[in-house]
């Protein structure tokens, strides 16, 4: 079974051992474009690692391994706080990309504080929930902590289950469900509609509440066919109306 630490970055999905699973839902496996011609001697000499590490071992490759393999020249390997999630497929070359250290430091701090915040905000551990889609032969799991908005989740789920859409999110990541006709269109269409089971055991329409609240309360996700989700909508509307 596929490792739970899934990486949804475009083009990277194919590196995580999916080839080993026979049942696949046509994941967007963009060909590895950056298996570039590393014939440039300067780059080869400086960077010992090539993208050979891209195929099987990436998910298991940890940062200390990476450090051992690089040449002593590379003094500027900066720790990547998210490395357990993203495979470090390229070794770091001193001074590349050419960005001022000042800027690098600022971005590093912000990255760390972002990840700290997401941890603080939701009790630290990952928030894996099962995702089922009507008609799909098996379920998947996602870590809701990896995303910061409904849009991101939608994109990721979209890659997982191709013909799926959560609809457009507005700036607050909450769907415009005050507009009843829009809601009806969505539900009547052959589009799939994401729903989730909350802490109370109720099945809710995804998108009503602020993202952070959703992550806290979501126990599992179910992607229903639009026509089936109709029953949920009035209740969702009620809940929204009573809040505003």
């Amino acid at each position, binding site marked *: 079974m596929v490792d739970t630490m899934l990486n949804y*970055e475009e083009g*990277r999905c194919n590196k995580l051992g999916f080839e080993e699973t026979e049942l696949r839902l046509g994941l967007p496996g963009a060909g590895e*474009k*950056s298996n*570039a*011609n*590393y014939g*440039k*001697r*300067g*780059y080869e*000499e*400086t960077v010992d690692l090539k993208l050979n590490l891209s195929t099987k071992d990436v998910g298991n490759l940890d940062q200390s391994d990476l450090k051992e393999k690089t040449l002593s020249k590379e*003094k*500027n390997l*900066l*720790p*990547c706080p*998210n*490395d357990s999630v*993203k*495979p*470090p*497929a*390229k070794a*770091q*070359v*001193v*001074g*590349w*990309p*050419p*960005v*001022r*250290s*000042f*800027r*690098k430091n*600022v*971005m*590093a701090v*912000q*990255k760390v*504080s*972002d990840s700290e915040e997401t941890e603080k905000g939701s009790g630290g551990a990952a928030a894996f929930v099962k995702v089922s889609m009507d008609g799909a032969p098996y379920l998947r799991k996602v870590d809701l902590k990896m995303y*910061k*908005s409904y*849009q*991101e989740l939608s994109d990721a789920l979209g890659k997982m289950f191709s013909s799926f859409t959560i609809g457009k*999110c507005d*700036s*607050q990541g909450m769907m415009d469900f005050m507009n009843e006709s829009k809601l009806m269109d969505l539900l009547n269409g052959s589009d799939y509609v994401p729903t989730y089971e909350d802490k109370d055991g109720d099945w809710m329409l995804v998108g009503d509440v602020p993202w952070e609240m959703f992550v806290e309360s979501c126990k599992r996700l179910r992607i229903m066919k639009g026509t089936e989700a109709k029953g949920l909508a009035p209740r969702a509307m009620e809940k929204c109306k009573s809040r505003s």
Partner: protein
Amino acid sequence: MCLFQSVMNYFPEEVLEHVFDFLTSHRDRNAVSLVCKSWYSVERFSREKVFIGNCYAVDPERLIARFPRVRSLTLKGKPHFADFNLVPHDWGGYVYPWIEAMAKNGINLEELRLKRMVVSDESLELLAKSFPNFKSLVLVSCDGFSTDGLAAIASNCRFLRELDLQENEVDDRKGQWLSCFPDTCTSLVSLNFACLKGEASVAALERLVARCRNLRSLRLNHAVPLDTLQKILVQAPQLNDLGTGTFVHDPDSDAYCKLKNAIKKCKSIRSLSGFLDVNTRCLPAVYPICTNLTSLNLSYAPGIYSSELIKLICHCKKLERLWILDTIGDKGLDVVASTCKELQELRVFPSDLYGVGNAAVTEEGLVAVSAGCPKLNSLLYFCQQMTNAALITVAKNCPNFIRFRLCTLDPTIPDAVTNQPLDEGFGAIVQSCKGLKRLSVSGLLTDQVFLYIGMYAEQLEMLSIAFAGDSDKGMLYVLNGCKKLKKLEIRDSPFGNVALLADVGKYETMRSLWMSSCEVTFGACKTLAEKMPRLNVEIINEGEQIEASPDDRHRVEKMYLYRTLVGPRRDAPDFVWTL
């Protein structure tokens, strides 16, 4: 003597001086001073602004001897690649001797602008105490000082108008430097302390802003909270340029509401930056000022996602300058292209510096902007991939580029579609953009691209090369072809002694040459240094290579050479050898 000259000599010097007053560009003044001795003399006594692009090309004594009336000095220190950690920390570039010399000689210094220099607290203190009319301090990418030095400036510079700190590494001593501005200080026009990492005395800041009625530009650091921003804006609705600190608050709160109202009253803001920490739900507060913005810098705000960026940019129809992160994506750049028709400068910085990245932008975004923004003339673009076709299209759409800096995140990536080198694409750029002054190339590149550059880039003054080329020919094409070349910096490219020594005289027409991780040897560097006494040829040895006399055939790791009137510098550290 020609007729013109004899006629001009009948003009008293005051007239010449008055005429020269209209010449503000230092290049014009340099040209004028070469005409004849009397013009040289008049010019040098009347020059108030001096620009020194390499602090080691001359020394303070010469500066003072030639331009005794200098009031404004601009100095640049470390080589450009120091920005990317390629130059050891204590290589040099100290400003202290300059300040000391000017202080001793009674120079009436009013303005000091430094880039990539080492500025100690002692120098700031000396500066603050030596020049009673000092008005303006601008420090870009400098280091070596702390908030104590800033306190000295604040306390002593009675007529301070401008304190502009851009991307410096400052040691924050948690002092109260902002409180050091005396109550009598009301002259501030521009204050930028966005790069400071520590706490700012919020009360002192508010009082300062309240009494400086001429304040036009204010950039806060991330320690300044949103409610302070609101109070400041109420005091200073006349601001032209605002850099917010944190932009995080509960959008349902009173404080946020007050902020929205305060911002609406700031009808003069034309430049916006900051958002160092941001709650995107607070962003709509700035929408009212977006319509008049000409400059927007969101490159330090990774917390703003693409959809939010797009929303914001949709309001910014008059934008001329946009600095942003690649989180904007190609789609976002599409929006820029259709909204920002006045755009002249675009910088897209990488958001993911450690992994291989999400998001990022590709050639599509660039093509879109080039098609939609006909006035585009300056570009810095970090991208995931590029194609020749895209560059050719960009070249056609925007023949007015003055600065074109492309940086592929993978330095040797080929054309994403054809897998060919990107020679043709950059070739198209140099051929089409006849006014191109600065170029950075990246991606898979052979000697061919340098042939094009040598052939077509007639106005090129600065060229940055990394991981490119096949042989000495590449570098030779550039040295032979680019007549106006001033700065050449090369790293990790196979250029060697033949290229270095082919035309040694060329380097006296340039400001500097940097070569690191290339094929140049000690022997060749020594030869060059012997032939050209007015060049400093510096070899930077780090750690491993401190041998008494290295083999001539040994490759040099880092070489930096520059023309100079004053010989080898006396402040070079042990690991720097001037040959």
